[in-house]
């Protein structure tokens, strides 16, 4: 009997059960496909980085080619100019403020919506869900005049605060079930030990919600970091520009100095790609996790 079982199981082993292991990079088709994907993804990035090492004259005489000689001045000019660092600083400031506001206020609201019982709670939650259907792009135009009235035009907070508001929905929607799932016994224990509910929230619930907090923080941060339209509408002074706005403006402003555009664009990719390489697992888990629940 056992021999029968064994012989039935034996032929399966080399044929790998998952179906995922049957092919390898050695298969010519797979290899070519992978090569094509990598090339299509990476070549535009390398093209921009490499272009930054050429002079505008080199680029004009032959648009495609290796630097000859290698020119460092484009990169050093950009790195020693105040513009690049200003854009970077503004993007960082705005993203940090927007993320802090969204996660801070959002987690407070999620706490109230998950662990308090009160009339109209579900209706209120629905209001926040409906907010998910408002794209910030559509709201940019109607936001302009209120921002003007309260003096937030051409001001970093004029971008950061609306971004935070638009991130609130996702924050609350992700955090609420998470906070709800924390067992009531833990809250009871805290209460027995004499903690108030707010203390329970700050000292116990927030630390327990850390994975979800990281997810919503990343979502809010990336949304703010990449936002272009609102910044485009709000800012007029170049020293207030964010990185996406700066890159796009730089391209039109220095259209004669192609090499510097290359260098500037290449450098502007560095923070996003660096952050991505460092936090890839978190970002991917956050993005897919927020979908899968």
């Amino acid at each position, binding site marked *: 009997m056992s021999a029968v079982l064994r012989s039935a199981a034996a032929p*399966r082993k080399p044929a790998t*059960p*998952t*179906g995922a292991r049957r092919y390898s990079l050695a298969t010519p088709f797979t290899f070519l496909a*992978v090569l094509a*994907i990598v090339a299509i*993804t990476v070549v*535009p990035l390398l*093209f*921009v980085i490499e272009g930054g090492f050429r002079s505008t004259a080199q680029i004009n005489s032959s*648009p495609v080619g290796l630097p000859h000689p290698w020119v460092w001045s484009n990169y050093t000019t950009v790195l020693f100019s105040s513009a690049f660092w200003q854009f970077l600083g503004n993007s960082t400031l705005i993203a940090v403020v927007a993320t802090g506001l969204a996660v801070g*206020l959002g987690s407070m*609201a999620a706490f*109230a919506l998950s*662990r*308090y019982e009160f009339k109209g709670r579900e209706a209120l939650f629905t209001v*926040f*869900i409906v907010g*998910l259907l*408002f*794209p910030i*792009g*559509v*709201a940019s*135009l109607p*936001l302009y*005049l*209120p921002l003007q009235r309260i003096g937030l035009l051409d001001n970093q907070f004029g971008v950061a*605060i*609306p971004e*935070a*508001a*638009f991130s*609130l*929905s*996702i924050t609350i*929607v992700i955090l609420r079930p998470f906070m709800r799932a924390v067992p*009531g016994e833990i809250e*009871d224990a805290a209460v027995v030990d004499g903690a108030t*509910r707010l203390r329970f929230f700050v000292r116990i619930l927030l630390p327990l919600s850390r994975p979800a907090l990281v997810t919503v923080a990343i*979502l809010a941060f*990336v*949304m703010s970091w*990449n*936002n272009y339209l609102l910044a485009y*509408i709000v800012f007029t002074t170049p020293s207030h520009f964010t990185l996406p*706005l700066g890159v*796009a403006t730089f*391209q039109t402003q220095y259209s004669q100095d192609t090499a510097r*555009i290359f260098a500037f*664009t290449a450098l502007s990719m560095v923070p*996003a*790609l660096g*952050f*991505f390489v460092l936090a890839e697992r978190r*970002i991917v888990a956050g*993005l897919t996790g*927020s979908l*899968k*629940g």
Partner: protein
Amino acid sequence: MVSSTDPPVAMAVARASSTAVAAGARPPQAPPLRRPRGLRRKLELTLLLGPALALFVGFVLAPIGIAIYYSLYNWSGFGPLSDFVGVHNYKLALSDPVFRSAIAHNLTLAALSVIIQLPISIGLAMLLNRRTRGRSLLRLIVFAPYVLSEATTAVIWSLMLQPGGFVDQFLKAAGLGGLVHLWLADPNIVLYTLFIVITWKYVGFGIILLLAGLQGIPAELHEAAALDGASWWQTTRRIVLPLLGPTIRIWAFLAIIGSLQLFDVVWIMTGGGPANASVTMATYLINRGFQSYEFGYASAIAVILFIICFVFSLAYQRFALRRDTRGALTRAVG
């Protein structure tokens, strides 16, 4: 395709759905032991909910209301609101050939992304799901364009697509010189050029989503199919694709919503031109609002764009996602 702002947005729609699912799975409420009563409770609730609610109402809900209000006036954005025109702006917009072609462009991009990006994403996700050496590095590479802002993507591709630039030289070197076009200046081509750029940026996102979906398929199913002598195609057709269904439906939702709201890439690369050949609803809106100073009219466009997205979201939730997320947003909203 998915615009840079909406993955969170639409994902949250999905998440809201799973919220309801999760809530349904366990007792609806973790009952608190002690209920602080009266004033203290009210104070706590006000303190916790007040700031978020104020922010949300002030910067998310109010603008929509403001847009509806302005849209009823003929107004340049300066001076008093006095020229009440009722729904005239809406009539004007819907009969304007440029706005109509903008809608058509958005719909074309949405259709193209489902028809072209989806098969590419599924194929590449299945390829990357195989356990090959360097798989995690491959994933990192494929996903990289997604983390770049649309603005940066637009600048990169403006440089790539310059006449006589990299793309043209590459095609010539590959013996495909006949394919060289004025990628961004030819009205017949520009929309498709933009679509390729958007595909470059967003395919990685689709792959990551679908990979997560693929990894959710139990290995036992592959095993059983292999034991039954199923071919690769049969396994894919009868097991993998049906089980990827929920992921594909969410992806399609994100892609279509993103296509409807597309702005950054178009605005930076072409500004909607040449001769409105690549105008989208969002670029039309910004153009009319901030370059022609037709604030009332542009507000009407904003409202129309919002209604289109809103109706699409609800309909999609109700009809396409119902199976996956029963009783979620559809019940809460519709």
